[in-house]
């Protein structure tokens, strides 16, 4: 099967004044369809650079990046924008929804751009389906400030899914959420992954990484470990445990 992500000897070197900083050195990586990976590492390990490269927000200095079979390492600004539009769904730590814009319109946003033009009615239907998938169809007309953090992140997930991308890219998706909501979001990711969607997630929390199938750890711009998660968390199971603990705590009181 053709890998979704294929990095071949990727280098990323930043030029800050006279100093050259090598953020990523000679990284190769292959991710197959249906995988759910976590890229981990301390700050400065190169994981943000990896994220930007995988997300086609930035081009590698050297090396080749094939995304869903398309060479994205030598494309121009607008072509990269089209790739992001068609093949990648972004989920950010800060949700990055448009404020004072309804959930539905936020989800419609990716369909507004790119080469294809859908009729307004179909755009709306597709956005509603994406919202249903994350369980927020009822709140389609709410603006982000009327939604909780978890709900906002689920709107962001719906937005990421709406163009049926080859890859979901999540950058610290639980960074701004409490532990309970974090589990909710991981539950959403796990069920999407079960439906066959490939997910790559950047996180520095080992707990969160344990919900994924494969953990890649980076340090100083290189991959130092790449393992299949042995005892994977199941979000539904964890949620039940959390509820039980909560209950127990109440009884003690």
């Amino acid at each position: 099967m053709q890998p979704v992500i294929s990095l071949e000897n990727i280098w990323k070197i930043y030029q800050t004044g006279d100093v050259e900083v090598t953020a990523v050195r000679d990284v190769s990586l292959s991710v197959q369809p249906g995988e759910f990976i976590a890229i981990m590492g301390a700050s400065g390990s190169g994981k943000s650079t990896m994220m930007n490269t995988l997300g086609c927000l930035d081009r590698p200095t050297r090396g080749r990046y094939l995304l869903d079979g398309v060479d994205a390492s030598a494309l121009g600004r607008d072509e990269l924008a089209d790739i992001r539009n068609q093949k990648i769904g972004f989920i950010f730590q800060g949700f990055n929804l448009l404020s004072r814009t309804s959930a539905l319109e936020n989800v419609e946003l990716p369909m507004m751009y790119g080469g294809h033009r859908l009729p307004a009615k179909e755009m709306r239907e597709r956005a509603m389906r994406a919202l249903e998938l994350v369980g927020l169809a009822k709140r389609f007309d709410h603006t982000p400030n009327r939604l909780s953090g978890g709900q906002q992140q689920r709107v962001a997930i719906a937005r990421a899914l709406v163009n049926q991308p080859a890859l979901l890219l999540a950058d610290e998706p639980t960074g701004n959420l409490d532990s309970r909501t974090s589990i909710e979001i991981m539950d959403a990711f796990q069920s999407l992954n079960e439906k066959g969607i490939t997910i790559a997630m950047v996180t520095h929390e080992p707990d969160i990484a344990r919900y994924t199938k494969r953990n890649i750890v980076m340090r100083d711009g290189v991959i130092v470990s790449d393992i299949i998660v042995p005892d994977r968390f199941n979000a539904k199971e964890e949620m039940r445990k959390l509820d039980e603990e909560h209950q127990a705590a109440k009884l003690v009181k």
Partner: protein
Amino acid sequence: MKLTATFRIALRALKRNKMRSILTMLGIIIGVAAVIAMVGVGNGAKSQVEAQIATLGKNMILIFSGSMTSGGAKGGWGAAGTMKVEDAVSIVREVPGVTMVSPEIRSGAQVAAGNQNWFTSILGEGPDYFDMRQWEFSSGSSFTEQDTRSANKVAVIGKTTATQIFGEEDPVGQIIRVRNVPFKITGVLKSKGLSLMGSDQDDVLVVPYTTAMKRLTGATSLRGINVQAASDDIMNRVQDQIGALLRQRHNIRPGHDDDFTVRGQQDIAEMATAQSKTMTILLGAIASVSLIVGGIGIMNIMLVSVTERTREIGIRMAVGAHGWDILLQFLIEAVTLSSLGGLIGIAIGFGTAQSISHFVGWPIMVPPMYVIGSFFFSAAVGVFFGLYPAKKAAALDPIDALRYE
């Protein structure tokens, strides 16, 4: 991205900061309003003046005695008393293209009939005067050539004077006394309304100029001569030839000032509109300064808006917006701002012109060309001053924009 969707986003962004949007538009609003008001009032004035000029008659040339600019003290038109009846006779005889002349005497006098009296202006004219000025009679007719030759005591009465002295009665055939000299009324003139100077043209009693000279004023010189040319296109030539003839007759050597003034109907129109031209230039200057300042205001606010919405730009770019999409979004926002200001300015301009017209008493006229023109000009201001901020937004790096706090 679809243009309609972009337009909707722009409108929403402007609605979000209502106060700011309105303040930003103010420059454009004032500029466009000034243009519309200026054009409306100016054109109204022009048509008003043209209508008044038309009451003079057709292809009229007015010759005034005495130069308007002779020496330090200006006696006013006709004060010098340099024009003679013989000048009028020689003009009609020697200048080709002159169809009619009417020597003019002007005076003011208390007139009375029965137990009514009224102060009115007394005009001494030739019998052709009414034809020249296309002044029709509501009853009776003009005095005759014979009346003029014999200096008969006959008069034609203006509408205002007739109403003041005779009320509803028909004055034709009645006697009116001017400085105790009885005059027989031969005709009543139709109303001509206000003159260019704002005086009532109907408040008049017209008598033969010979009668005026001999029996009323005792003057031997004329105030001026009314001349009619055969057609519009020979006006300039006729004016020049009259000037040359009069210089010769008055023995004025080259290099010396004329002791008379020759004015064509068009010159009078130009003099009358000169004032409104000054106002037009002044308002035009205000308008253009205001539009430039308004444009700079738009540029300023758009730059602020781009900075404020850096993250939004980042999000849009992350989900696939091209630089062009972002550029268009901000450009449309700037154009919406400026053309909305233009529309409001047009409305306010009409309102202002309307209320000015209330005070000055003439109707306003704004040609549709100016309305369309000022709308498109304000839109163009938006494009011009919105381009730089929009380009700045489009050139943002998506990674930096997403990280912007």
